[in-house]
């Protein structure tokens, strides 16, 4: 009897924490999303079913924010995967300064997102940013460019900034996966006459798929949840509004907890679906033999 109880007792604290800190808030948020709940009208709180969700889907601002989020997501994932892979390939080369290069490569990842955003804001500052200064001095432009005022330029800059932050994690994960591939596999391929490209395409890439799955999932969730960088770069303006920013404004600025909770749930579902797609299609068990 004692033997049967012991593992459950060991699991109890962690389970309780998960229930209290994760599952209960998720459930509570869902319940809020089914209510009309404005903090400035405390006497007007009532159950309205899925009305909040219907209102969100009918709101043009939601689709605008969704399109911004989608562009950021695709850009970040592509850029992170490609550049991350290249950096991992570079770091995989045995050199004397490999350790230094690795440390330098990790720096963007170590910065808090808000610091990241503020730093890039100074680079793209409309008046005295580094980017404008360089381009003016090179005679590429004659007047400063308002990088952060136009929709697509600010969205792509946000994507660049987020990708810059995600690339180190991506490259480290891919690098460790690369280094775990047995050299005998490459030797066999070499003996069979495979060139570099074929080796990469037929051996390296398939064997990296599980790690790529993890990286893509993590990067996608980061891209969907981007908030700090957008606020640092362009504030709470409509031009660069994403789903997360919309949810934040609804909940904490406009104090509409019902609508904000519904929006948060939609974001959670989107992120969950993406994760599921990656896990099912990208993540596969690999056998080196």
């Amino acid at each position, binding site marked *: 009897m004692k033997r049967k109880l*012991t593992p459950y*007792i*060991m699991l*109890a*604290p962690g389970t*309780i*924490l998960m229930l209290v800190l994760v599952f209960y808030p998720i459930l509570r948020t869902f319940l809020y999303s089914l209510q009309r709940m404005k*903090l*400035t*009208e*405390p006497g007007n709180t009532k159950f309205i079913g899925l009305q909040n969700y219907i209102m969100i889907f009918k709101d043009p601002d939601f689709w605008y924010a969704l399109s911004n989020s989608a562009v950021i997501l695709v850009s970040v994932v592509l850029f992170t995967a490609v550049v991350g892979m290249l950096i991992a390939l570079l770091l995989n080369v045995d050199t004397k300064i490999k350790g230094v290069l690795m440390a330098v490569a990790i720096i963007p990842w170590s910065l808090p997102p808000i610091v990241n955003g503020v730093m890039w804001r100074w680079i793209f*500052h*409309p*008046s005295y940013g580094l980017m404008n200064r360089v381009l003016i001095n090179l005679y590429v432009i004659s007047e*400063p460019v*308002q990088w*952060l*005022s*136009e929709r697509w330029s600010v969205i792509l800059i946000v994507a660049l900034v987020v990708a810059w932050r995600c690339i180190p994690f991506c490259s480290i994960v891919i690098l460790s996966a690369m280094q775990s591939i047995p050299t005998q596999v490459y030797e066999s391929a070499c003996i069979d006459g495979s060139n570099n490209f074929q080796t990469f395409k037929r051996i390296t890439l398939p064997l990296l798929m599980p790690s790529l799955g993890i990286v893509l999932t993590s990067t996608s969730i980061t891209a969907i949840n981007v908030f700090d960088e957008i606020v640092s770069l*362009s*504030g*709470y*303006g*409509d*031009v660069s509004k994403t789903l997360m920013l919309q949810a934040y*404004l609804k909940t*904490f*600025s*406009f*104090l509409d*907890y019902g609508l904000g909770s519904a929006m948060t749930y939609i974001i959670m579902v989107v992120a969950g679906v993406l994760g599921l797609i990656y896990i099912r299609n990208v993540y596969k068990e690999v056998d080196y033999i």
Partner: protein
Amino acid sequence: MRKMTRRVVSLCCCIAMAASVTACGGGTKTEQTQQDTTAGKQGEKTDAEKTGGPSVEDGEITVMVPPWAEPSQELLNSFTADTGIKVTMNIVGWDDIRNKVSIAAVGKKAPADVIEVDWSWVGEFGAADWFEPINLTEDEKADMPTVSSFQYGDNIIALPYANDFRLGYFNQEHFKKIGMDQAPENWDDMIKACKKIKADGICEYPLSFTLSATEAATTSLIWMTMSRYGDFFNSDFSVNKDNVIASLTSIDKIVKEDKLIDPASQNMKDVEVYEKITTGAASFMVGPTYFIGRINNPEYSSVVGQLSPLLIPGNGTTKTATFALPEGIGISKYSENKGAALKFVQWYTSPDIQVQLYKDQGSIPTRTEALQELIDDGIMVDGQVMVDQSQYIVSPFPGGIPSWYAEMSNTIYNSVNQMVTGSLTPEQAYEKISAKVNELNQ
């Protein structure tokens, strides 16, 4: 035996971990700094206790304010010595206070006994009934003109401690170079003067104006409309179409045709825009009153001696107009120490303490008595302009600040920003603002 020992040790570790997490989740909610003041020596009765002051249960409060509102330790000690009330300061970023108040209120808790209340939050906080009404005599109200900004219905929910309204500032040297010893008193002449300043190469973008999607763009549109064209809102809280379209059109023209405002202002924070005048990169701006202490302070200004405050220009018929954007402190409805909290609020907003707060941290007094004392003593230079401008403070909101101010402001500043970036015409910007206000007003 060994197995048993290992099991016991593992179990103890799990319990310790769970207990430590629980302990970390509880406790007092304090943020960046915490100051605890105690009165007198232990065992000695305080003056408050001798005169039947607050009870032991009412003798300790927490105060949540932004960094610029934190009083010095000496001031806090003097308050505790006089009243016997211990004060714990919770210094929290301004942007975070509103969120903390709203989240705590959902659980019917007070994040602190005394809390910062910005003028723009009055509508929301009043509608949600999160603050205790404060009674003032008519004389006290007369001495604090900006207290009207903290009135919701019949209740005053906070007392203002930092006076802020919009005031004009101009660079005398720039205007002298075009032959003007005084800045113009109406907007048409001001625009003409700025055009001449630009044409003569004195300053590329003479007018400093916030156009970014931030709160400052909303207040800028409001004071521009009030001072140049008239009421922003009609008496039924609909947006005044003629005045607001005229205001939007004039801003659009100043940006795109006259090119008097730096295009970078479309994406600059308000403080960055205001600082253009103290760097000599602008000739005229309408900005916060605290710039009175900065325009000729070498620590903040690189054009010391060149800048002067002035009344916001009018339109020839209206001499000038401005509205108040003060900050106040109020007492949480869920506070368990309301008596002590009220004493602190009254003390903090008293004339003597306001004078001291100005000397310590530059906080502009909200009491006319305190303001006049600083001016008469020569401590506040150019303060008379501020007193003169304060006579023209008018609230643009019929019936007080609405509970949906944040949502309305979001639409206004986004509409202004999209207009100047070319996404909307002035008429479209007006339609967006008007539609939102009507929707929220229903």
